[in-house]
C-alpha cells in the first residue's frame, strides 16, 4: 500500500500559521526514499517545536543510521504549534513527517526521543493527530509501534499507558536490532513483535509487567513480568568505540532558524565526575572517548557538507577529554583565518578551561565564559560532589577577566538536598567577590557577572533519587532573598545580573521524573484540558497540573506531594527498579548517605574504580586516551 503526501492539504494551511518554514522540511542532508521500495519504516519524533527538535543529535544520528540501510526508511516529525494543530484538526490533516510529508500513522514504528519529561503532553498531541489511539492497549496491527527513547526512558512509567515500548540507553545498535525484528517478523503481528523486542533484554514493554501497590501506604509494591518473554530486569545498551559510529556524517541543516546555528561533534560520551544531581552523568557511564582523528574527520566532513560556520565540541564535560588540549590547538591551527568558529560547551571551574577557551577564540571575540559551581557554599558543593573551593573559583574567574574576557556566567541550582537559605545567599557573596577580583584583574569597571539559577529536580538512577524535592514556595522565597542580597551592595550589584525561573515547572518535572504508572492519568487529564508545550513558560500551567494531579491521584490515595516533596525510604521499591542503568542500587544509596555526610567521591578516570556497578554489569569499560595520535591533515578539495 503506497502512502501519499499530505503536503497539498497542508500547503493550504501554512499561509495562516506563524513561521510556516518549520513545517516544510527540505533541510540539507535530509533523505527522502520511495515508500514502496522499503520494508521497514520509522517515523522519528522529537516532541518539541522544530527549532528545538531539529538540532537534537540523538534523532539526527538514528535518522542517518536507519536511512543507510537500503530497505529502511526513516523520516522525522516534530510537535506542531497550537495554531497549526487547530487548523489540522479542522481540515483533517494528520500528524506528518517533514521529509516527505507522510502521515505518521502509516509508519511501522514511531520512535520518540525524550530529553525531558515536559514533552509528555506533546507526545499525546502527536499520537492523537496521527490517528493513533492514546492507549497502547487500544492499538491494533494497523498502528505504528510507539517506542520511547532518550534519558526520560529510564523511567517511562508515567507514560507506560501511551507507549508500546521503551529503549534504554544508547540507540545506535538498538534501532538496528529492532529494525531487523520488524523486517523478519512483521507478519506475526503486534503482540509477537513486542515479545521479540522484550526478549532482547534491552527493550521494556510496559504492558508485559504488572505494577502492584501497597493499599495502606500507597507505595509501589513491585513491578513484575507477566509473561515469559519479559525479563525481570531490562538493561540499558551501551555503544562502545565511538570511532565506529561517526554520526551524524551529514548533519541536517535547517532552512528555519534553530536554537543551535552550528554543527556538533560528540567528542565523548558518558561522565564519571559524579555530580550527584546529574542523571545524564549517572546513566551514560562509563566514559567513551572519540579519538582525535575521529573528531578531526567529523569536523572536516561536517563543515564541508553543511556550510556551517561553527562547530560545537559536545559532551557532558568537554574539557575532560584526555587530549582536549591537543585537540583545541590542532583544530585552531587548522581553521586559523577561515572564519570558522569553534566552541566547547564546558563549565569546568579551572584555569585549564580558560586556556582552552583562549585557544578556540584565537582570532575571534572574547565575549563570555561560563562556569558551573552549581552550589553557593562549599558545604553544599560537597553534598552534590561538585568540588571546587571559593578561592579556586575566584582565581579562575580573575584569570579570565585578566585575559580579556568581559563577561562571566555562573550556573547554580536551588532546592538541593540539605540546602538552607544560607547556602543560597552565599551565591551573592561569591558573585560580589568575583566582581571585586575581576575589576582588579581587568583594571576596569565594565566587567559583568551573570548568575543563572535553575531549580533542582531529583532524578531516577541518581543518588538523589530518594531525596525530597524542595517545595517551590521555598525555592521562590530563597531566590527572592538572594535577589535582595545581590542588590544590597549597589556598586557591586550593578555589575551582577541574575537569571532564574520560578520553582513551579521544576515540581511538575519532578512529578513526571519520579512518578509511577498512576501519573499517566494526570498527564492525560492535563492534555485533555489543553496542556501542550509544557517546557515553554507561556504554555505551562501550574494550576492545571496541580488540579489534575490531585483529581487523578486521589482515587489511588496518593497526591502530587507523594511523588515530589516526600523523601523515600531505603527499602522502598522505586518505579524504575526493574530498569537497569548498571548502577548498583546499594552504591547509589551509599553515595546518597555520603552526600548527607558531605563526603566527596573521586572520578574513576583518574583514581581507581569505586565500584558504581556499571562496567561489570554491562560488560563495558572506560575508553579513553591519550592515544598520542594527531589530527589528519584535511584533504584539499
Amino acid at each position, binding site marked *: 500500500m503506497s502512502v*501519499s503526501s*499530505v*503536503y*497539498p*492539504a497542508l500547503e*493550504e494551511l*501554512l*499561509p*495562516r500559521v506563524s*513561521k*510556516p*518554514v518549520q*513545517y*516544510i*522540511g*527540505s533541510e*540539507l542532508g535530509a533523505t527522502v526514499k520511495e515508500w514502496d521500495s522499503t520494508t521497514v519504516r520509522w517515523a522519528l519524533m522529537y516532541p518539541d517545536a522544530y527549532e528545538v527538535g531539529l538540532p537534537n543529535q540523538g534523532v539526527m544520528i538514528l535518522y542517518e543510521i536507519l536511512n543507510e540501510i537500503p530497505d529502511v526508511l526513516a523520516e522525522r516529525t516534530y510537535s506542531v504549534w497550537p495554531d497549526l494543530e487547530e487548523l489540522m484538526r*479542522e*481540515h*483533517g*490533516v494528520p500528524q506528518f513527517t517533514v521529509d516527505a510529508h507522510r502521515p505518521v500513522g502509516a509508519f511501522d514504528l514511531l520512535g520518540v526521543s525524550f530529553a525531558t519529561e515536559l514533552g509528555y503532553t506533546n507526545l499525546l498531541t502527536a499520537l492523537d493527530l496521527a490517528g493513533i489511539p492514546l492507549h497502547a492497549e487500544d492499538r491494533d496491527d494497523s498502528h505504528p509501534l510507539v517506542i520511547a527513547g532518550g534519558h526520560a526512558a529510564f523511567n517511562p512509567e508515567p507514560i507506560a499507558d501511551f507507549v508500546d515500548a521503551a529503549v534504554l540507553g544508547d540507540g545506535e545498535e538498538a534501532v538496528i536490532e529492532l529494525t531487523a525484528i520488524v523486517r523478519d517478523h512483521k507478519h506475526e503481528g503486534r503482540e509477537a513483535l513486542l515479545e521479540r523486542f522484550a526478549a532482547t533484554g534491552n527493550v521494556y514493554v510496559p504492558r508485559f509487567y504488572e505494577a502492584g501497590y501497597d493499599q495502606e501506604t500507597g507505595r509501589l509494591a513491585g513491578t513484575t513480568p507477566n509473561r515469559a518473554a519479559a525479563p525481570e530486569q531490562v538493561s540499558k545498551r551501551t555503544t562502545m568505540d565511538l570511532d565506529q559510529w561517526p554520526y551524524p556524517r551529514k548533519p541536517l*541543516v535547517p*532552512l*528555519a*532558524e534553530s536554537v543551535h*546555528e552550528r554543527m556538533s561533534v560528540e567528542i565523548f560520551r558518558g561522565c564519571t565526575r559524579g555530580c550527584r544531581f546529574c542523571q545524564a552523568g549517572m546513566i551514560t557511564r562509563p566514559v567513551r572517548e572519540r579519538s582525535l582523528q575521529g573528531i578531526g574527520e567529523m569536523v572536516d566532513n561536517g563543515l*564541508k*557538507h*553543511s*556550510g*556551517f*560556520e561553527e562547530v560545537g565540541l559536545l559532551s557532558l564535560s568537554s574539557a575532560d577529554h584526555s587530549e582536549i588540549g591537543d585537540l583545541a590547538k590542532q583544530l585552531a*591551527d*587548522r*581553521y*586559523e*583565518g*577561515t*572564519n570558522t568558529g569553534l566552541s566547547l560547551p564546558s563549565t569546568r571551574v579551572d584555569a585549564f578551561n580558560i586556556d582552552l577557551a583562549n585557544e578556540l577564540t584565537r582570532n575571534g*571575540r572574547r565575549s563570555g565564559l561560563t562556569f558551573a559551581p552549581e552550589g553557593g557554599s562549599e558545604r553544599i558543593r560537597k553534598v552534590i560532589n561538585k568540588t571546587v573551593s571559593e578561592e579556586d573559583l575566584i582565581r579562575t574567574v580573575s584569570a579570565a577577566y585578566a585575559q580579556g574576557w568581559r563577561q562571566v556566567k555562573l550556573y547554580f541550582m536551588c532546592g538541593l538536598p540539605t540546602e538552607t537559605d544560607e547556602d543560597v545567599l552565599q551565591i551573592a557573596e561569591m558573585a560580589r567577590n568575583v566582581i571585586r577580583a575581576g575589576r582588579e584583574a581587568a583594571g576596569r569597571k565594565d566587567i559583568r557577572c551573570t548568575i543563572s539559577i535553575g531549580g533542582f529536580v531529583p532524578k531516577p538512577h541518581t543518588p538523589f533519587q530518594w531525596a525530597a524535592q524542595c517545595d517551590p514556595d521555598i525555592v521562590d522565597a530563597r531566590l527572592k532573598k538572594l535577589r535582595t542580597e545581590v542588590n544590597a551592595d549597589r556598586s557591586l550589584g550593578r555589575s551582577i545580573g541574575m537569571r532564574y525561573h520560578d520553582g513551579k515547572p521544576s515540581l511538575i518535572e519532578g512529578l513526571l521524573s519520579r512518578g509511577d504508572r498512576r501519573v499517566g492519568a494526570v498527564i492525560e487529564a492535563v492534555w485533555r484540558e489543553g496542556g501542550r508545550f509544557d517546557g515553554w513558560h507561556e504554555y505551562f500551567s501550574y494550576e492545571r497540573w496541580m488540579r489534575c494531579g490531585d483529581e487523578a491521584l486521589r482515587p489511588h490515595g496518593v497526591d502530587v506531594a507523594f511523588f515530589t516533596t516526600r523523601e523515600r525510604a531505603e527499602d522502598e521499591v522505586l518505579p524504575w527498579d526493574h530498569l537497569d542503568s548498571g548502577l548498583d542500587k546499594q552504591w547509589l544509596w551509599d553515595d546518597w548517605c555520603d552526600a548527607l555526610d558531605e563526603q566527596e567521591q573521586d572520578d574513576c578516570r583518574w583514581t581507581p574504580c569505586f565500584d558504581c556497578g556499571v562496567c561489570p554489569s554491562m560488560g563495558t569499560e572506560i575508553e579513553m586516551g591519550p592515544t598520542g595520535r594527531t589530527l589528519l591533515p*584535511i584533504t*584539499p*578539495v
Partner: protein
Amino acid sequence: MADDRPNPSAPTACKLWLRYAKRGKLRFASHRDIARLFERAVRKAELPIAYSQGFSPHPKLSWIGAAPTGTASEAEYVEIGLTESVEPDSIAERLGSALPGDVAVLQVVTAGEGALADRMLASRWRITVPVPDDASLEDAVAALLDAEEVIVPRRTKSGLKDIDVRHACVSIKVEPVSESFPQVSGHVAKQPPGEGVPKAPGYGILEVVVRQMTPTVRPDDVLRALHVVTGHEWFGGPAKASRIAQGPLDDAGQLVDPLVGDRMSST
C-alpha cells in the same frame, strides 16, 4: 590549512549580480532563511567571497527587495562581493549545486553601472485567487482599476499604515477561471487538496504589474484591495503568488529585464 582556501580578509575585487528563483515548498522560507541559506551555500561552494570587516564578519551579500514569506518567485536578485574575479558561469554552477533544488540560480552577470536596486521599479506577480461561483474576477478587477484610489491598511514596523494599492497597480490581467487545482510556477500540484479541505469552486489567475513603492505593495494587498472594492469575503484569504519578473518599466508601462545590457551569462 589548505592553501587553496579563500582568504576572507581580502577586499572586494569583483561584484556579481545574480538572479535566482525560489519555488515549491521554499516559498514558505522567509528572507532571513534565504539569506542564511545563501551564506552557507557560498561557504560550501568555497567561493572567494568577501567578508565585511569588524567583530563578526559576514559574507558580502546585498539583497534587493526580497519576495515576502509565502510567495514564490522567479525573479529574486542579490549582489555578491568576491575577493577575486571569477567567471560568472562557474559561479552559477558552483553555487547552484550547493543550494537546494527549489532555489535555482537563473542568471549571473558582472555588476553593471549604479545600484541594482535602482533598476527595480516594478514587479510582475502571478496570483492565484479562489473565486466563488457567484463572483466575477473580471468585474472585481475592473472595479479596482476604475477607482481613483484604494486604500488598504498595512502593518509595518511603525504601526498601521495606509497604502494606496490602486496607485501601485500599473496593470492587471485576468486569466479565465479554471476548474482545476492551480499551479503556482515551479510547484506542480499532483493532486487536489485532501479530504476535509473546503472545496474551492474555482480559481482565477491575475497577472499584476506592481510599481515599487514604500512600503512595498504585496500580492496580499492586491487581494485586500479587491475585497475593499467588492466587499467579497473571499478576496481576503491567503493567495498563492509568484513573482515572474522585476525590473525597470519602459515608456509603454512594460517590465524590462534589469540585467539586459550587462554582460550576459544565462544558465
